[in-house]
């Protein structure tokens, strides 16, 4: 059976890179005594995969990993044990059972939400009205700048440099949502930015790239250390079929059609995105 686990990453754990988080979970699963399945071969490894790697320095409330377990009765008890095996900075938020024919998270990821704000330790600079901090210092200014950058520009061209070449790409189509948040945050007084970005193995937009382009647009220099980027959620596209195999696909599609119809009857909009652990698999 496959289980999709949702976890958060905060505090000092933001300095632990993706590969080390994987190693951390491999050991945590053993500490928790979860009956995970192993691959075949001379040196078997745990069957485990992660949805979308999170860069070092970013925090998150929406991290996902898929595991394959031997026992059919995986539940709250296992999640509790797994949580006991965590450290400060990583906690399990929930889980979803994924049918055997379910595609792995990694191949479903299509978008991610981020929250961007100036780190509290830079609050002084922010008040002093320097550069980027000054734009984030006032949510009204931030909103104006965001509108000018995102809504009023037909295209947002940036140059992406790789080892060999540099190519120009248009960010506009990869940014699904960008807005300045109006409600005041609990601790810091400054404005916050919300981003929904195209994410995944085929097309991936890093929030840092958007921020850099935004800073350039605002005519201020981009200081990567100034901002805390916090991932809120990771999504699959609602119109992507999340299962393999003809029968499973057909069943799923029929199920979704029925659901869409009932949403339409009630006059509710059908979501465009599903958070990874809330995909409406057909269960029997």
């Amino acid at each position, binding site marked *: 059976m496959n289980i999709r686990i949702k976890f958060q990453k905060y505090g000092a754990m933001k300095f632990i890179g993706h590969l080390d988080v994987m190693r951390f979970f491999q*050991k945590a699963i053993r500490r928790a005594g979860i009956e995970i399945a192993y691959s075949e071969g001379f040196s078997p490894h745990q069957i485990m995969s992660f949805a979308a790697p999170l860069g070092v*320095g970013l925090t998150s409330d929406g991290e996902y990993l898929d595991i394959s377990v031997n026992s059919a009765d995986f539940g709250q008890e296992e999640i509790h044990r797994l949580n006991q095996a965590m450290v400060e*900075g990583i906690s399990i938020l929930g889980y979803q059972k994924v049918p055997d024919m379910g595609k792995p998270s990694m191949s479903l990821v299509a978008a991610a*939400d981020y929250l961007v704000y100036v*780190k509290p330790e830079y609050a002084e600079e922010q008040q002093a009205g320097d550069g980027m901090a000054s734009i984030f210092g006032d949510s009204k200014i931030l909103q104006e700048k965001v509108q000018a950058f995102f809504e009023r520009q037909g295209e947002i061209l940036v140059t992406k440099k790789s080892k060999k070449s540099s190519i120009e790409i248009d960010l506009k189509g990869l940014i699904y949502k960008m807005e300045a948040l109006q409600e005041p945050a609990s601790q810091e007084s400054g404005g916050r930015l919300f981003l929904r970005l195209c994410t995944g193995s085929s097309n991936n937009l890093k929030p840092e790239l958007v921020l850099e382009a935004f800073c350039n647009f605002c005519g201020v220099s981009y200081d990567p250390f100034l901002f805390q980027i916090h991932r809120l959620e990771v999504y699959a596209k609602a119109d992507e079929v999340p299962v393999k195999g003809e029968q499973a696909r057909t069943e799923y599609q029929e199920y979704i059609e029925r659901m869409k119809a009932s949403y339409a009857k009630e006059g509710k909009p059908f979501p465009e*995105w599903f958070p990874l652990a809330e995909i409406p698999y057909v269960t029997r």
Partner: protein
Amino acid sequence: MELQGKNTSELLRGSHHNSGKKERKLALSDKILLSVEKPARYIGGEVNAVMKNPDQVDIRFAMCFPDVYEIGMSHLGLQILYDMFNQREDVYCERVYSPWHDLHKMMKERRIPLFTLETQSPVREMDFLGITIQYEMCYTNILQILDLSQIPLLAAERTEEDPLVIGGGPCAYNPEPLADFFDMFYIGEGETRYDDLLNLYKAHRTEGGSRQEFLRRACHIPGIYVPSLYETAYQEDGTIASFTPKYEDVPPTVKKEVEMDITHTPYPRKPLVPFLKVTQDRAVLEIQRGCIRGCRFCQAGMIYRPTRERDVEMLKECASEMLRASGHEEISLSSLSSSDYSQLSELIDFLMGFKEKGVNISLPSLRIDAFSLDVMGKVQDVRKSSLTFAPEAGSQRLRDVINKGLTEEVILEGAGLAFEGGWQKVKLYFMLGLPTETEEDQREIPRLAEKIARRYYEIPKEQRKGKCQVTISTSFFVPKPFTPFQWAPMYDRDGYLARARIVNEEMKAQLNRKSLKYNWHEADVTVLEGVLARGDRRIGPVLAKAYEKGCLFDSWSESFHNELWMEAFQECGVSIDFYNLRTRSTDEILPWDFIDCGVSKSFLKKEWERAQRGEVTPNCRQQCSGCGAAQFQGGVCYGG
């Protein structure tokens, strides 16, 4: 199921960002942590790290391994002490490792004080700074630790505000090159006397006593050496004229401490699990201490006498608990000459039981025989793994000189068995520059490798899978204190490299040269290691000078700067040749003579003489040779 697209404010609810959980405050800013390589080295908070409230303990102890995190975290000894100290409610022991070059630079520039990993507190605020000294090439890293902690480098310049700096580990058996920088050394195994030392500290502080008075009291605890309470005088020829306590009550010799019952002592059953992949990324079982073999070059074989085994039932229990508490997917055994552990097959059988739970067993280098090949065949992929032999010397004559009881016959028999079992790779370890070594001895090294390769090709062609590979590695021999070779001369850099060239040339003359491979090391580090290993207090200023010039992480070839070291020696007027090239007289007062390591100087002398005559000394199980360690009332020769 209700599906609804969440709006932004719904998404933010329940976000950790707003939940106000209390987070541990880090000593370094985000900006610094995100600018250095591997920030995980500096944040602590690992699984099984001990968290205590520092306000609720009497003694704060910073325990340091003076090398980068990945190396330091792999050391078992430090984990044993960490576990043992933290079992005391009145003590909080935290860890410190060497900041890598990148962070070192930033900390120096911004005057950021070095901190402990657990509570991220300045090391300067601790009561003790304990430093384990595992190899000579970490000495400049010790100075870095003191410097970044903003503790005066010289013990003499420290005040009541500074932590007491205490050293331990194998290099403490000749603490003299470091004498200026340490308030005290602990000679021997930590299990026995740290409680006494910590209790004395607590009592002394309650009484309001000074630092100097504490050190004077501490020198009476067995195993504790306070260098400032002794003075050395030198003769005109540079050798030591006298080494004497400054005061009458200060003991003239310091005897090493040994824990005789290693079954009923603290063992870290909940090992720390680092986030980074460290050198030793596995659970480690120390199965025994000491060694019965008596190789004459080996310091560990002498200073850890007598041999003591841990009870196999205790080890089984530890193994299960460690794997459960750490989640490690590998377990390894640790000891000198593990094949001599009497319950080895029972222990390995037990550990095999973890294989089905996906736990690998990493074997120590075992004597190659039918038993070990059988075990290796079960736990490793035969085609990928290699066999290891450590003949240490190429000729039988020289193997007799160093008392390495391995014969050519045994090697060829083991290799033959292994080749027939499907192995194709063999690694051979040798030393060059051993006492009495001749060019003929050097040429015997590749010839032995050739014989092993020939043994492989004796197997009918249809039964073997392609070529074999015999890899020869040589290191240059460095004489160490408390070994029969402590009086032996070394060579200069060119002398060592000439030896390696001879081996290389001889290898190329072999018939099966295409199946042979030869690796050797640079010789500069060897020369330096020699001076530091057998140096005296006059080396202290050279260390300080080298650190001042920028020497750091000298055990890392990419950061070793020989020219800076040479400048330091020159500017301090200290001759390397004096320490390395002389054959010391057995009458000479050696800098470490005031330490009693249990093995007597007369035994070492006798062994030095037997070595020169090429006479083999039987191992401790065969016959007691009266080394002196039986005074600790244990070991295979005791009462048996």
